[in-house]
């Protein structure tokens, strides 16, 4: 199946349904925690004929079980970072090898971030992979830098964001540049008071939420602040991805002029009613359920904890659900965990 997926990543036509059902059969066979999960729902490959009926595994499963469908021992794993809920377990995404991950990421990045250029100087507001070998983000940035970087430099070390070096590098830039980092790293950058005016064609790719960090900023506000720091010509683009996925989705600002997100042909994003897990109609919020066929070595069918809305021309992520609150003087679990930082 690896060969087939590599052809798909290279643009070969394929039937999504057919490939999804075959991957389901393979992962049901090979990944015991996923098989048990499906069995409890009465959904085995023998019963499922429509890919939309394949059970979506909650991403929390990656914290508690080894979600692995490869052969032999995995060559590598990436680990999730903590969340607002503090000292919880971290999830691990295991890979038999990193070939598919590398191969799927580049065409998506090219399409949504660099549709108009072959290469660009890249500045990473992240630790290099050597410093953080289990960060999927560092690894991913490095892949893109190798493929598309006219130059590549990293501006986070164990002490945090290297503001002076970043500012110097940005001031020295002669043409457009691409900055990549977590949303939170960009908050740090704007808070540092850094101020430059980047050339037209420059862009920022940010990803991830704030995960309980000291300062939370809405996305529109963040983009306004970034343009304040880097100049009005900078285009800001959000990546929707997570450690548990191999592929990513992106704002389609550069390809369609719409910031609604799109992904590659081998990813389908649907919104499910959190109560029934039925797909909700376009325009209605639901839990983001991702089918990422590039997740061959783990589980391709994921149920996230994000709320999103699908439209004809793409989807929007409304963010991690803020957690429920009790209606009175009782306290609901999420509030309790926040107050007590468990």
């Amino acid at each position, binding site marked *: 199946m690896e060969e087939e997926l590599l052809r798909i990543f290279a643009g070969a036509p394929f039937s999504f349904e057919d490939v999804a059902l075959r991957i389901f059969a393979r992962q049901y066979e090979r990944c015991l925690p996923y098989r048990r999960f499906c069995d409890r729902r009465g959904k085995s490959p023998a019963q499922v004929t429509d890919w939309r009926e394949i059970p979506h595994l*909650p991403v929390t499963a990656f*914290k508690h079980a080894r979600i692995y469908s490869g052969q032999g021992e995995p060559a590598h794993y990436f680990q999730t970072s903590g969340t607002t809920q503090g000292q919880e377990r971290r999830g691990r995404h295991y890979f038999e090898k990193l070939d598919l991950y590398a191969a799927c990421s580049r065409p998506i990045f090219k399409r949504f971030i660099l549709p108009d250029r072959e290469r660009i100087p890249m500045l990473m507001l992240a630790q290099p992979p050597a410093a953080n070998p289990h960060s999927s983000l560092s690894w991913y940035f490095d892949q893109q830098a190798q493929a598309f970087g006219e130059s590549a430099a990293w501006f986070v070390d164990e002490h945090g964001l290297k503001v002076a070096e970043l500012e110097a590098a940005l001031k020295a830039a002669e043409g457009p540049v691409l900055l990549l980092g977590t949303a939170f790293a960009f908050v740090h950058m704007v808070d540092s008071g850094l101020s430059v005016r980047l050339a037209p064609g420059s862009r920022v790719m940010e990803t991830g939420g704030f995960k309980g960090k000291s300062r939370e900023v809405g996305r529109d506000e963040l983009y306004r602040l970034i343009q304040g720091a880097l100049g009005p010509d900078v285009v800001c683009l959000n990546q929707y991805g997570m450690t548990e996925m191999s592929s990513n989705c992106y704002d389609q600002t550069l390809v369609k002029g719409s910031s609604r997100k799109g992904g590659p042909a081998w990813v389908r994003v649907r919104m499910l009613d959190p109560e029934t897990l039925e797909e909700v109609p376009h325009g209605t919020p639901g839990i983001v359920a991702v089918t990422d066929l590039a997740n061959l070595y783990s589980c391709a069918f994921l149920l996230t904890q994000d709320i999103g809305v699908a439209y004809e021309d793409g989807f929007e992520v409304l963010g991690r659900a803020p957690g429920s609150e009790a209606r009175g003087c*009782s306290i609901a679990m999420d509030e309790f965990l926040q107050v007590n930082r468990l």
Partner: protein
Amino acid sequence: MKVIDDLLAAQAELSRRPVEAILAALDRVAARWLDHADPIRREAEARLAETTGLAPAMLRRGLDETITRLRGIGELLDQDLGSRYALDGFVQRARGVRSRAFGPGLLVAVFSGNVPGISSFDMALALALKSACLARPAREEPAFAPLFARSVAEVDPLLGRCLAVQRWSYDEDWPYARAGAVVVYGSDRSVEAVRRLVPGGVRFLGHGHKISFALVAREAAVAETARRLALDVAMYDQQGCVSPHMAFVERGGPLSPLAFAEACGDALAELEREMPRSRLSQEEALALRSARDEAEFDADAVFGSQGNLAWTVIHYEAPAFMPSPLNRLIRTYAVDEIGDVVEVVSPYRSYLQTVAYAGPADRREELAGRLGALGATRVCPLGMVQQPGPLWRHDGRPAAGDLVRWIDIEEPSGP
């Protein structure tokens, strides 16, 4: 503010009325509410079903229980004040002291929307203390308090003029300036928001975040107990501060803790037919979904409704303390000895409130003493969490006693 002027003017008149006459009027109000055919009761049931989404069968049951408490206010006054007549004049106390009690004059009450009908008690208690009440109902449940005030006005116009119901924002301070006491129910955040606006010297009673739980001694680990637990979980969709978040089940009884959890699930399924859970917000549904997903990989067993999130029982063979996302999700924990629970809950002492207990009375007392030392304030029979008697000391405080102030006359001592 005119509303305050009007309330205080009516209260001046009410202060001359004997307490028995007020209690008699409140009894007539209660009688109207307990008559299921009374138009105001019917209107309340319909509006509450619409605004809260709670099941009609549950609302009927809840209103009966809540209104019945009003009939015990006379007894509550006797308990807290020594005698209800201390509100009418001086009553004899020990050592020759004679004392008289005064209500707050104006009670300002900020209610939460989790248990509809519960605001009737504070409003009625204020009246019994010859005081007016300005009530602020919650956004989620604005219907009951005005209907209750209307029913009081219909029975007794003067009492009616002593009640006003309206909403104001959490940053407005005018309601509190002339209050004698302020009571707030809600999240810690809501309680704090109001506390900051209340002038020093005005009595402030805040009922913030609380967590309740259930204890099942091995002798009581039977299906009937599981049904009682399910009722406590289902009532008001677990939103009450008295609603159990978790149950600790002792090993060695007729039902193993695991079998008990399953029986509780069966009972919740039955209750879902009789009084189905209310609609959920997106956040609530997602919180339930996440808790179930997590449990599927870290719990020892999960029992849950199929195809929706109507009810969930999550079972663990080792005890822990983890509040529920509410809306009919309960975690059950096996324990070797029921007394082991004291240590498990002790880090969360400031949250503890109601302990619903099923088991022999002789084991209960020792446990209650230890839990009381931590901070729990009520031990009640399982299945009865929503039916505290009128003498209930909510969060450990005397309801009427906290609202009055006293004047004592001391006799000259000897010649």
